[in-house]
């Protein structure tokens, strides 16, 4: 086992929420958007992070790159804890970690040309580069992600959603990062375009040896892209396992429910398959249920679930559920 490129240990992000009705001296309510997430990711591997909207996926991603104050540790491959760095020290790592955003058009400044947008990381991290070299680099990256290099002077609004996401990918790749964080990169795209963009990411990963954190809100998207999958619910890790194992043997009731909703291409299995309904609404993240946070919607909940479940381990398969090690069938 090689040394991990990035390792998160017990990462937590808490927001102070002030309601307008609060008086200035009332202590703010606390929202635990990310609550004790740990993972370790080896070079060249892909981690898929899955969860419903509002479960803290983006918040986790933003915490990893220091866009939000977080507690815990994020260890980079050289042994540095990214969370303790000053903004100036962090700059060095920013060129090694790049991010792709959910809304392709909104993540591009409408008043800048595509060339200037893609060149921005170069300007920031390679200030010594001449503008001619920069332009060459931008053109080659554009070609790499399937954009015509002669579109360099165009503006984002002249491109389609899929092309905008390619621009976003080009911007992330231009500084040759080691880690690419993709925050729901295809959620805003048409299904056919989704496949193209995912195909491109796969190809880039293979050719460039990228390590990827891939965030999505449904399991089917991460399935064939990820080596490891983590399922989040209300900011907590519900289950984490290598991809094949998680899909073959989901142990957490939440994962089982999510998986049962994923359509299976085989019509025979699809017909006999039972969809486990998730009843009730997502509880407010401000007031999560005591004990197991999934308790209010879990089809198998028991009295013991009112205490916080510890991580049940089977090999590298983590499951936060009391029933996990009893081998209860889905």
């Amino acid at each position: 086992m090689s040394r991990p490129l990035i390792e998160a240990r017990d990462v937590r992000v808490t927001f102070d929420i002030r309601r307008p009705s609060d008086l200035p001296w009332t202590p703010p309510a606390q929202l635990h958007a990310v609550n004790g997430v740990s993972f370790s990711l080896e070079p060249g591997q892909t981690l898929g992070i899955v969860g419903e909207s509002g479960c803290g996926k983006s918040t986790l991603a933003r915490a990893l790159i220091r866009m939000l104050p977080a507690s815990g540790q994020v260890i980079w491959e050289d042994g540095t804890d990214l969370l303790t760095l000053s903004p100036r020290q962090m700059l060095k790592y920013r060129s090694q970690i790049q991010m792709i955003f959910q809304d392709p058009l909104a993540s591009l400044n409408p008043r800048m040309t595509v060339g200037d947008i893609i060149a921005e990381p170069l300007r920031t991290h390679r200030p010594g580069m001449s503008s001619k070299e920069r332009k060459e680099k931008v053109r080659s990256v554009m070609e790499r992600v399937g954009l015509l290099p002669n579109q360099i002077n165009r503006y984002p609004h002249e491109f389609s959603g899929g092309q905008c996401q390619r621009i976003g990918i080009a911007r992330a790749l231009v500084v040759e990062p080691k880690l690419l964080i993709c925050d729901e990169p295809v959620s805003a795209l048409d299904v056919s375009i989704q496949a193209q963009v995912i195909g491109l990411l796969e190809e880039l990963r293979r050719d460039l040896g990228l390590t990827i954190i891939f965030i999505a809100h449904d399991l089917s998207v991460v399935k064939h892209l990820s080596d490891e999958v983590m399922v989040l619910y209300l900011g907590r890790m519900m289950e984490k396992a290598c991809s094949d194992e998680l899909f073959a043997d989901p142990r957490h009731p939440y994962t089982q429910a999510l998986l049962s909703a994923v359509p299976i291409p085989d019509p025979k299995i699809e017909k006999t398959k039972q969809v486990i309904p998730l009843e009730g609404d997502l509880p407010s993240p401000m007031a999560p249920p005591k004990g197991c946070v999934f308790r209010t919607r879990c089809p198998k909940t028991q009295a013991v679930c009112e205490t916080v479940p510890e991580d049940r381990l089977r090999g590298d398969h983590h499951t936060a559920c009391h029933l996990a090690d009893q081998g209860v069938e889905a």
Partner: protein
Amino acid sequence: MVIDSQKMKSLAEATSREDVAGRSLWADARRRFFSNKAAMFGLVLLVFVTLFALFGNYIAQWSNEEIDFSVMGMVAEQGGPSIANGHYFGTDDLGRDLFARTVQGTQISLAVGIIGSAIAVVVGTIYGATAGYFGGRLDNFMMRAVDILLAIPYMFVLILLLVMYGRSITMLFVGVGLISWLEMSRIVRGQTLTLKGREYIEAARAIGVPAPVIIRRHILPNLIGVVTVFATLLVPNMILTESFISFLGLGVQEPMTSLGALISEGSGTISYGTLWQLAFPLLFFVLTLFGFFFVGDGLRDALDPKDR
């Protein structure tokens, strides 16, 4: 689908190797603006009024201070508009050339409007962008200060100032400038707040672009639209404010004049049958206001990102 880069390459070569020119949002806005009839009409009005203010004095046969003794005392009978004696717009009640006076009044009114608006742009943009970008306590403090200043009946304060420190054009600029930036700072702050939440700003922060560069490269260019529109619409407001004060007799001092002062004089003497003394200043006043409102509306429609 996996991208076939070989195919893309040949496609790239097949289509022209030349870089395609982009169509910026500014270019789009410009085209929309120039195809807007009302805005073009407003622009023509403004060009006309500006040319009149800048070069009217070269056409005038009289200066604005000379009194034409041949019409003095018989203004109602002899002071009417006439090409023959060089008083194209007639004379005022004292026998001064109204054409020259209207030129000067237009100059002063335009200057008050544009300077008031310029102060608003500079002070309001810096103030609002600072409050909006840094947010938190600073924002709270700065915007509460604006709320308090806005709550003061400024017309009352302005009149007090003019009465206390005497009527001078500097005082007028100071007074108008003091109030004009408040609304602007609110608008800029609101816009900065929305911009700050945009994903491309977040993307720039994630890349590690320093804050001053983010403000310069990402925030200011996206503020220009709102600021331009508001500044254009602020000019006629400032002119109206000045005219109102002048109408009360507290504006610029003789021998200087403004459109508001001229209208005030003209309306005072209308019962003597000297209609032109009201009509000409009023015409230029109305043309100026319409011009700015039409152009401002046209800019707003052109720059509005919603109907891209």
